[in-house]
């Protein structure tokens, strides 16, 4: 794959806003505006490279599912920091994974340094973003700028098809809630923090859900209500109410853009756990995804598939590498590159010298894992070298497209730029 610099010919800001993409510009680390969507360059891939990425992503997803099955069978929940009740929810959700706990999507972050290697950096399996940019904005760019080329991107139709599957599965199962209101069976409530990027992402997913036959309602997560009835709403559940939206409509199908661990730690967390356990609320992503979005999965993958070509060596204990090595320390529940650092280890597993890169942030109390550092896709630009991470999307269980994030630093963060791609068949 190759990075090609071009002069953006079109008024892309207006094109973006026309599509409702109003978070195209981010704040630079030192303050001031910095484009988040960046079409002053694109990445050119070959059809063979696209085939390799597609195959690698599908294989990694299958490995991840095997790892989840292993963790649940062996009850290896300790590294994931789950309470017994949360572990029970995860196991119950996994048992329903082919039924009402179908997964919608996830995004692998891949390092593709250009020597033929493809390495998994992590799996954003619970709350991946950058979806709208990849599915719509990038596609629209291709149609406008390179209408004769192709793009690894069938995300939108894959999402519609998967939402349809989920809807039919939910409807077939019904809702055990003895509410007098039945219209919730076909309604999907989508919640997120009230910030532009997350609002934009659920607005897009609401459109997709609508196309798949759901009634779709979006609301800020802090507007979700709890309707207390004072008595169990289903026999034996011990649940004495349900979640409602701002019209007091009960929430039966919930898409959340906040990580499971945040919601469970919140004031409504125990209620969410009880409602999900009782099958009164179905959640996208389902609870079993908590195991894959937690970076504690990385050492498990390595242990189950030692030396696998698609994996980076990873351990919970940095002394386990047993050789001098450059490693990346990642907080288990970190996001957007926060609290990630890169350092060199000596043969005894001790850190030598200053970190090569480090990003501050609010994570880390939950513990870290250590992963062998691998080179990313790189390119030289007029502004210096850039590093690119390939976000490779899984919809359902299929590999359906990519989106590329670039940064000037080694660690890809919240303000890394989204750069479109294309390939020539």
């Amino acid at each position, binding site marked *: 794959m190759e990075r090609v610099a071009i002069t953006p010919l079109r008024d892309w800001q207006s094109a973006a806003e026309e599509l409702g993409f109003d978070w195209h510009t981010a704040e630079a680390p030192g303050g001031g505006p910095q484009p988040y969507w960046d079409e002053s360059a694109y990445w050119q891939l070959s059809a063979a490279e696209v085939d390799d990425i*597609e195959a690698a992503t599908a294989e990694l997803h299958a490995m991840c599912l095997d790892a989840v099955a292993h963790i649940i069978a062996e009850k290896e929940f300790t590294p994931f920091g789950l309470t017994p009740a949360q572990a029970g929810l995860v196991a119950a959700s996994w048992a329903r994974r082919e039924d009402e706990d179908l997964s919608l999507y996830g995004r692998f972050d891949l390092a593709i340094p250009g020597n033929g290697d493809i390495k998994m950096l992590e799996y954003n399996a619970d709350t991946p973003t950058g979806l709208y940019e990849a599915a719509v904005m990038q596609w629209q760019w291709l149609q406008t700028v390179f209408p004769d080329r192709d793009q690894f991107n069938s995300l939108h139709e*894959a999402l519609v098809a998967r939402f349809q599957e989920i809807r039919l599965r939910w409807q077939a199962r019904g809702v055990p809630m003895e509410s007098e209101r039945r219209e919730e069976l076909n309604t999907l409530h989508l919640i997120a923090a009230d910030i532009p990027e997350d609002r934009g992402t659920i607005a897009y997913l609401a459109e997709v859900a609508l196309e798949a036959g759901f009634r779709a309602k979006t609301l800020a997560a802090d507007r*979700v209500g709890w309707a207390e009835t004072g008595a169990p709403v289903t026999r034996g559940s011990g649940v004495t109410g349900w979640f409602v939206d701002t019209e007091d409509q009960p929430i039966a199908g919930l898409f959340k853009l906040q990580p499971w661990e945040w919601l469970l730690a*919140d004031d409504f967390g125990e209620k969410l756990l009880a409602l999900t356990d009782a099958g009164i609320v179905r959640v996208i992503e389902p609870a079993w995804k908590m195991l894959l979005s937690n970076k504690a999965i990385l050492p498990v993958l390595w242990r189950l598939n030692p030396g696998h070509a698609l994996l980076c060596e990873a351990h919970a204990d940095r002394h386990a590498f047993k050789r001098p090595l450059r490693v990346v320390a990642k907080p288990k529940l970190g*996001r957007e590159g926060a609290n990630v650092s890169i350092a060199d280890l000596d043969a005894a597993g001790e850190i030598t010298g200053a970190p090569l890169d480090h990003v501050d942030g609010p994570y880390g109390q939950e513990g870290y894992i250590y992963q062998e550092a691998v080179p990313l896709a790189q390119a030289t630009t007029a502004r210096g070298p850039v590093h690119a991470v390939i976000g490779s999307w899984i919809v359902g269980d299929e590999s359906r497209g990519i989106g590329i994030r670039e940064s000037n630093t080694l660690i890809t963060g919240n303000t890394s730029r989204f750069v479109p791609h294309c390939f020539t068949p």
Partner: protein
Amino acid sequence: MKKSKIRKSRYVASVLRGAGVVILALPIAACDPGQQAATEQPATEQKVGEQDVKIYSSIEACASDADPAACEAARNQAITEHREKAPRYTNAEQCRTENKECEEVRTSSGGSYFMPMMMGFMMGRMLGGGGYGFGSRPVYTDSQGYANTTDRRLGMPATPSAGGTTTVRAPVTAGGDIGTRTATVSRGGFGSSSARFGAAS
């Protein structure tokens, strides 16, 4: 392999325009054909039966079923409850989120607030918590089309208004109450999640 251009441009044209998606608290008028009108109730109250409840929009409508003087007394009693117990909203938008029709009420101090507009009043023997007195209550239509009293949901009107009378088949509880008690709602329990470190990954 599914990586060719199989997406049609109509998708891109429609996204994020919000057509059809219900954003936050906007009321919806959609009514799916498969949906059933409400007949069930929460397990908090034991339902013992159902009763057709007539809702009169005027004394004249009521007078075809009952004594005009009783109708007038019933309407007055409903209006009193309406003034005392109907929900109040600081602005029209809030009120219309929950109710089909709203009215502005001016206060003597020069301010104003909004209340749902009465679609009519109901009267009957079993009203008023199991007693056999002759009671009457104000009735409202919410934004989803259900008929409600100030604290109970009656159900979806089964017949359109004819001559100013609408009929709703409503559940009757063991305690003699008609309709389903509306649950108490609290909000903000996912507030910390929203206030955390911003974007998802």
